[in-house]
């Protein structure tokens, strides 16, 4: 079995209780951290090559180093919005091993000089939030949260904030606005959250999985973390596999594990022994890949090389029985629904793309529709406040480029080329 960093419930199913967590070395990282100075912690995290697990893969230590030094209110915010279609990993860290997130929040808070932390959990996960709240309460009782933590003089309070159903609140500045009690419309950057974040104060936002890596990096050292995964892509990754596989689920594996191994060994292969047609490697916004990519190591840099991205590590598997036009029309509807409406190209472009794709899917597509779609993509890409517009483009353009013949077939024959499909609309 490979190294377990995050899924400690596979070692002890009761690790969500603080006593059990402590038996596995829990809160040792915090003790060690409090004996270091904040800059040493940031340096250690930098050296570990930990990169953000929320989608962009930005180096975590570097992000922390952007926070201004010195006194003054600062915030550490955890992104537990988990809204990217196909993604269901942070949920299991929170429900099975919540203390590792809590411990990571305290260490991160200490490193960046924040005295308050918020965990922003999507509203639908209220049942998960209850488990996290219980862990927070336990941590307060043991003196790992609150005033003068372990006699270090460091104070840190941690609260849960529930979202209320809006994908855009997963974008970090949308999340910040939502935490402030406003609509979750993203902000123009700069200023970046490290200068002007939640309540106008310097703020760092990190994903659940990113933060949960921190306690073990501090406890066991960056050198240990560097032994897992390929260079510059170190650590384990939770891959969330869904779609047409026999054994869908979450698997913690070293970064760089080949896609083939994840789909065919861990996720049990394709349902009914069917052929693989398409696979989204990193949540719906990651451009779709085909069977020729099965030997790709699943890490940030390798996926970038083939024009896609690791994103959230959510793998959506589609067998030969999938109509690509139909599947991606559904995703086009998602982006159109979730656009916050601030930027014209995204507000107007995403519903327009959905409309065109739906008519192609319905057998009413017109000649030239595919080029029209690509043209709209060009007019959205890079012209919006936040990356949602780009995400819609990456998703839709990726599908068109790889499966253009299916789109053209739909237009020409006014029907689908796949028999036996499970209808989506």
């Amino acid at each position, binding site marked *: 079995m490979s190294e377990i960093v995050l899924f400690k419930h596979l070692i002890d199913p009761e690790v969500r209780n603080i006593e059990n967590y402590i038996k596995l070395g829990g809160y040792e990282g915090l003790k060690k951290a409090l004996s270091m100075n904040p800059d040493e912690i940031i340096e250690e995290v930098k050296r570990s090559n930990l990169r953000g697990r929320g989608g962009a893969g930005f180096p975590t230590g570097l992000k922390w180093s952007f926070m201004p030094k010195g006194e003054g209110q600062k915030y550490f915010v955890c992104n537990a919005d988990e*809204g990217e279609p*196909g993604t*269901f990993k942070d949920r299991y860290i929170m429900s099975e091993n919540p203390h590792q997130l809590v411990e990571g929040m305290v260490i991160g808070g200490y490193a960046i000089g924040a005295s308050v932390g918020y965990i922003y959990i999507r509203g*639908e996960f209220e049942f998960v939030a209850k488990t996290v709240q219980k862990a927070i309460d336990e941590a307060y009782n043991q003196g790992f949260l609150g005033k003068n933590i372990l006699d270090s003089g460091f104070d840190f309070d941690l609260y849960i904030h529930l979202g209320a159903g809006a994908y855009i609140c997963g974008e970090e500045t949308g999340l910040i606005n939502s935490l402030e009690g406003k609509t979750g419309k993203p902000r123009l950057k700069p200023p970046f959250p490290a200068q002007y974040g939640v309540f106008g104060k310097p703020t760092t936002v990190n994903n659940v999985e990113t933060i949960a890596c921190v306690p073990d990096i501090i406890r066991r050292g960056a050198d240990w973390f560097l032994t897992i995964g390929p260079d510059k892509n170190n650590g384990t990754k939770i891959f*969330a596999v869904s779609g047409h596989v026999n054994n869908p689920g979450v698997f913690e594996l070293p970064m760089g594990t080949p896609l083939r191994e994840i789909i065919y060994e861990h996720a049990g292969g394709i349902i009914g022994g069917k052929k693989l047609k398409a696979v989204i490697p990193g949540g719906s916004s990651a451009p779709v890949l085909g069977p020729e990519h099965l030997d790709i190591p699943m890490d940030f840099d390798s996926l970038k090389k083939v024009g896609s991205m690791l994103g959230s590590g959510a793998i959506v598997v589609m067998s030969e029985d999938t109509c690509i036009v139909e599947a991606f029309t559904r995703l086009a509807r998602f982006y159109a629904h979730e656009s916050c409406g601030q930027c014209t190209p995204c507000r107007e472009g995403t519903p327009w793309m959905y409309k065109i794709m739906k008519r192609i899917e319905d057998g009413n597509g017109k000649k030239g529709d595919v080029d029209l779609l690509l043209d709209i993509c060009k007019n959205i890409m890079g012209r919006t406040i936040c990356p949602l517009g780009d995400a819609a483009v990456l998703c839709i353009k990726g599908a068109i480029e790889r499966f253009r013949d299916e789109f053209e077939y739909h237009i020409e024959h006014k029907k689908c080329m796949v028999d036996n499909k499970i209808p989506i609309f």
Partner: protein
Amino acid sequence: MALRFDENDMKALEKIRERYPNNTACTLPFLHYAQDRFGYVSDDVIKLVAETLNLPVAHVLNVATFYTMFNKKPVGKYHLQVCTNISCSLLGARRLVDKLEEILGIKPGETTDDGMFTITEVECLGSCGTAPVIQVNETYFENLDEKKVEDLIESLRKGELDV
């Protein structure tokens, strides 16, 4: 009828207020609380939350309409929220919606005449590995198929499930 928060409500709300540096930040948690308490976010609920927080009604209304989880219309006793995003759709979410339409005689967005059920199609619920999924009020029902949906409705009708 003017709504009000009673003493217990106010105690709970004050607890929430302590987590934030200002009143505006309480808008979402107060709306969640009010929706649990009063069933849905009516105009009166919006006014009440605005008054309690000393914020403009327009602000609370704006927030309440932005987020899909705040129901601006009454919903049935059981709110059936069917995920039809990609992973659920690949495994037959549409068939679940069709089944629900057939059993309940309503379409997504509608509520049965007896006020028992509302069907809503929702986006990814973060439960794609146990697809297809329906969230009934706050509870997730995972790995569903048409037969299980029939059983689910049956159990809900009989009041056998605590959701």
